[in-house]
């Protein structure tokens, strides 16, 4: 009972502190919303087109690119169009730049090959994919011209006279379809590549907040609040339980907030409710253990914020919160699984992308429970030792 009162006091202190609220509520929500917007903005390739005004070839290729659902086309016109497009590409604001030559119409009429430059960094996977999408559209244009040439040999006339007929036929012919099936998934909430997502941010933030939140506990210790409490009819265990309860409450509240924002703003479906709840609660316990341990190890509140935030970010990077562990090497993946984060992220992938249930993430939950038990025990013993020393 006394420990609950202690936890209540700690929580009231947090609720009255605008800085704490900023880090608990505002910062995670803003970061998640911004990341979400950035990711959803990237569903199509951003393609810059230079020379859209260069005759019939330019106009028809630009229209074809614009009607392609996979592309978000930005036209660059005017004197230094190509320079501006190259700058945007270099800064990563575009995935590909298409340069249509000024003399495209003359080249085509002469029966020569019109070469359309597709600019991109070949070492960049997105640039390569965008380049291939552009190549496919250019090839469709080539098909139309080839068909028009063929028609010109059957029916008399110039190739240009038959382009319209070929285009009409092409529009009526369904494209050669490439049908992609993900064999082991129900949904793609955890996107691959370099995309971030709400579930991994949940893992990242709850941990960092808990470790950084130990600053308050250290302040209580330094001010001698704990010692004064011990002078009364309060046992060290009560204080340990109270501090743990307040950390756990904060972790759970923040989880609920992030789950809520994910569902409401981005329509994230959090999978099987029982399994998701178990995962959220276990993760809150891991965070609590780390937070209380930090509170008993660090000497000053500044250390908790400085070292705690840095360590939390580092653990998140290792554990696949900032990028999927698919892209790292085997060694880094193994090292990453020394962090509880990697197991939590694995469990979320199982729940959300494969529609798994409690049984499917049993192994991950067991590992997380192990982490939570070790951290909480270490934290309890260490804090108790500090209090009775």
């Amino acid at each position: 009972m006394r420990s609950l009162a202690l936890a209540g006091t700690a929580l009231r202190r947090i609720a009255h502190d605008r800085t704490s609220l900023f880090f608990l509520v505002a910062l995670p929500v803003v970061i998640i919303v911004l990341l979400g917007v950035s990711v959803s903005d990237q569903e199509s390739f951003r393609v810059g087109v230079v020379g859209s005004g260069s005759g019939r070839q330019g106009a028809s290729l630009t229209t074809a690119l614009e009607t392609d659902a996979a592309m978000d086309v930005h036209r660059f016109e005017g004197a230094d169009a190509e320079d501006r497009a190259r700058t945007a590409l270099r800064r990563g604001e575009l995935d590909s730049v298409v340069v249509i030559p000024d003399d495209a119409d003359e080249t085509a009429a002469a029966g020569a090959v019109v070469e359309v430059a597709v600019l991109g960094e070949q070492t960049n996977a997105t640039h390569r994919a965008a380049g291939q999408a552009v190549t496919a559209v250019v090839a469709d244009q080539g098909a139309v011209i080839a068909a028009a040439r063929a028609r010109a040999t059957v029916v008399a006339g110039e190739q240009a006279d038959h382009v319209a007929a070929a285009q009409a036929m092409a529009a009526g012919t369904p494209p050669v379809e490439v049908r992609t099936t993900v064999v082991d998934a129900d949904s793609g909430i955890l996107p691959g590549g370099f995309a971030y997502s709400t579930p991994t941010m949940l893992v990242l933030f709850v941990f960092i907040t808990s470790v950084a939140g130990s600053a308050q506990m250290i302040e209580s210790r330094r001010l001698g609040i704990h010692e004064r409490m011990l002078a009364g009819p309060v046992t060290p265990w009560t204080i340990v339980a109270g501090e743990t309860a307040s950390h756990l409450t904060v972790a759970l509240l923040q989880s609920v907030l992030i789950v809520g924002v994910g569902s409401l703003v981005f329509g994230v479906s959090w999978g099987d409710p029982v399994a998701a709840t178990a995962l959220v609660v276990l993760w809150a316990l891991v965070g609590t253990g780390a937070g209380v341990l930090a509170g008993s190890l660090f000497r000053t509140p500044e250390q908790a914020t400085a070292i705690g935030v840095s360590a939390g970010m580092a653990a998140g990077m290792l554990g696949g919160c900032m990028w999927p562990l698919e892209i790292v090497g085997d060694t880094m993946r193994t090292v990453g699984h020394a962090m509880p984060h990697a197991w939590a992220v694995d469990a979320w992938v199982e729940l959300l992308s494969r529609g798994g249930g409690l049984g499917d993430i049993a192994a991950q939950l067991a590992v997380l429970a192990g982490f939570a038990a070790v951290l909480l025990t270490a934290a309890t013993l260490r804090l108790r030792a500090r209090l009775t020393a």
Partner: protein
Amino acid sequence: MLHGAVVIAAKDLRQRFRDRSAIVLGFVAPLLMVALMNAAFSGAGEFHATIGVVDADGGVAGAGILDGLQSPDLADVITVETFPSADAARAAVDDGSVDAAIVLPDGLTAMAAGGPGVPIDVFTSVDADLAGEVTASIATAFTSQIATLRLTAAVAGEAGATDDEVAALLAAAATSPPAIQAVQQATSNEPLEPVAYFGPGMAMFFVLFSVGFTARGFFVERATGTLDRMAAAPIRPEAVLAGKALSVFVYALASLGTMSAVTALVFGASWGNPIGVAVLCVGMAASVVALSALVMGVARTERQAEGLSSMFTFALALLGGSFLFLGSAPPLLRRLAVLTPNGWALRGFTDLATGVDVWTAVAAPVAGMAAFTAVVGAVALVAGRGAVTR
């Protein structure tokens, strides 16, 4: 005045470097982050996937695509493994023995000659997203030739060509070069490596923490009477402020300089022209001085200073692109970045790293940071008049 300022700055710096938290935030943490990113992304360049292929077509079109997949051009990206049936390939993707699979359907060759359309199936797995993407785009690339032949057959047939004529036209089309061709070109710039973006990004995020240290230190000194004692000494208040500013400036510059030197030497991250890098670091350090002055001028207590500076740190880091790659962010966010000194500096750093001419890369960012420093510094002066003697 100058001597007093230097003495005060030296004392502040000694204090700062004795504080383990300051060392962690200024030097250890950013290097750790960059080391981790480097370790993670250096593996990313060596992408390789094993792709299952089923040739249910058995005709020339299927054989052509299979040849293409096994060509030496693609050998360093994919390894091809053939399967007898679509079900076998699908099972292999599901159990992870291949990363993705392509099924070349029965009727593919017939489709090229104008027959009915049949889809090409690509199977992918959530465990190998990138491999799936690459496989689908490879499949798409191979379909364009089929599309050309099919359209030629359809158009010629509709125009009244005989079957023999169509066959001749197809033979001609299959061997003639395309009328319009996409030519993939590398840009003449250096590629933007993740480390060249997030290295400076992280360095500036952690440098912003020194705003909090400085401001809090100032309030502690006021509470403990150190400032009063300084005021009693024959030093002008301006010298005290100059000393404080100098210590922040030196600390910020040391942190940024160490980051650029160590990431360049240890991780081979090229930050670009060293003179340009130095100019940007100086600009950023000056902005940090102005921000510290603002917090000291506006806050009334140590607690307020702490809260205000952490909010500045995270807001600027977020808007300035330290956490997420600004190039892929919405245009609005990209425009907001020009309100932050770190956003300007980061733009300069990425321009330098991608090989832009040094003065072109540095001019606008320096102007942006100078404007920020001037505006914030002016507000700090107005708000903080008498802060030392208060």
